[in-house]
């Protein structure tokens, strides 16, 4: 942990540059560039939100705000799993050539994902402003949740970096699993709906719901989320961090061979 923090500080210029190039490259030769992220986000939450709200007979402005935040956090969670898998694979040329800490590449993945998260959250704030639901104080209540979410990304993408390098089909497995997990994660529907229908246990088996709740609740309700969500996510984060450091210690030396 301590060494990783010093790596994060010492090599900031380097992974910042790499992440910037990754982003530039993703939007190279596209006229609208980064705006695509915002357009995608807005059309999805506005159109899908409006239709589903009508379908289920709920108030559109509430549901659209709810859906926008949920889908932003979900995209971030999903990228920790899928992008994490390719962290070391895309860096194989460097890993075989230059003796530098492997964590640099994990930070590179993180920085790219943070950028998307930042754009997503800003879009969500705009949507909230549109419906007159935004209060500045909610950003303060969101802070602990944000800190947990960032630690979660660090742990999970780190774990996936090692696993994804070792098991090359893991990314495909994760991608197909994600659509299933999406259904049992309260992104599209409020968690209470499932509890009322008597299948609330699905939520308790899925800590990702809590991960969304610790950001979504503060933004929508201007206060901290329920304590249990913080406890569940903190446990999840500690476990992934432990697993990450175990992998780093035991698998780290094989990375240049496997890459």
């Amino acid at each position, binding site marked *: 942990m301590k060494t990783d923090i010093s790596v994060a500080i010492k090599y900031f210029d380097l992974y910042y540059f790499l992440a910037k190039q990754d982003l530039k490259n993703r939007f190279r030769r596209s006229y609208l560039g980064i705006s695509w992220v915002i357009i995608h986000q807005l059309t999805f939450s506005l159109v899908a939100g409006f239709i589903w709200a009508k379908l289920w007979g709920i108030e559109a402005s509430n549901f659209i705000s709810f859906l926008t935040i949920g889908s932003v956090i979900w995209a971030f969670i999903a990228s920790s799993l899928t992008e994490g898998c390719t962290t070391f694979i895309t860096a194989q040329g460097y890993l075989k050539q230059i003796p530098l800490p492997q964590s640099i590449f994990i930070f590179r993945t993180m920085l790219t994902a943070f950028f998307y998260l930042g754009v997503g959250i800003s879009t969500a704030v705009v949507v909230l402003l549109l419906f007159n639901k935004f209060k500045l104080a909610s950003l303060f209540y969101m802070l602990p949740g944000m800190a947990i979410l960032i630690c979660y990304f660090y742990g999970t993408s780190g774990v996936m970096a090692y696993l994804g390098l070792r*098991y090359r089909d893991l990314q495909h497995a994760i991608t197909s699993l994600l659509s299933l997990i999406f259904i049992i994660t309260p992104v599209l529907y409020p968690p209470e709906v499932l509890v009322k229908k008597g299948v609330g246990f699905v939520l308790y088996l899925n800590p990702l719901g809590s991960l969304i709740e610790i950001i979504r609740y503060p933004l929508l309700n201007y206060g901290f989320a329920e304590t249990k969500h913080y406890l569940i996510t903190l446990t999840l984060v500690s476990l992934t961090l432990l697993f990450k450091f175990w992998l780093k210690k035991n698998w780290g030396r094989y990375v*240049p061979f496997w890459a």
Partner: protein
Amino acid sequence: MIAVELKNVSLDYYFDNEDSYSLKSALLNFYSKAKRPVDKTFRALNNISFIINNGEKVGIIGLNGSGKTTLLRTVSGIFHPTKGKVTINGVVSPLLDFNTGFEYHLTGYENIQIRLMFLGLSKKEAQEKTPQIIEFSELGDFIYQPMRTYSAGMSLRLAFATSTAIHPEILVADEVIGTGDAQFAIKAKKRLENFLSLDCTMILSSHSMDIVRNFCNRIIWLKNGEILADGSADDVIKEYEEFFKNTGK
């Protein structure tokens, strides 16, 4: 002062079954009662010990497959030994392989920046160094084109120019001298000769006895992952050449 020290270093490669990198086979292996195939290993380096002092110019010679590249990767700190201990004092600039370690969709210019930062320069220092690298590599306007459009010779020139633009503390080079066309080879040789007068430590492998004789004052001869001889350049080269004269007959 000691630049690099290897103490009883051994390094094994694991031969994987073709399929063992997949999750499917990992799970199947875990659940099946069938005996798991024994992991095959190949000992690429066997019980190697040496000390290289600051400023020494060491050549590594040996046939293909004798462990030269593996040794250079170990000395650079990229491969960690299976057994034994590697101590490196100083920053290593590896010149191992010119075909990897680039982002081919990025321009040559951007790749220079990345490589220099990997070698420990700050962003500002990297920008300052870049013009002279562009000049040395003779790439002209191609420097602003994506590297996927480069020929092998062009990426080689770029890689060489970048990695040798800084004054490395420990330069580790794998059969890089004498690459490229004749004109660039002379230029490259000249640049490396500049390093000879500096107090930088050099470890390089080559098949050419002329090159190691020119550049190195000490030579390590590897065979099947073991050190066959380690001594002054003239002695070891003589031994090496005699060995092949005799076996060649």
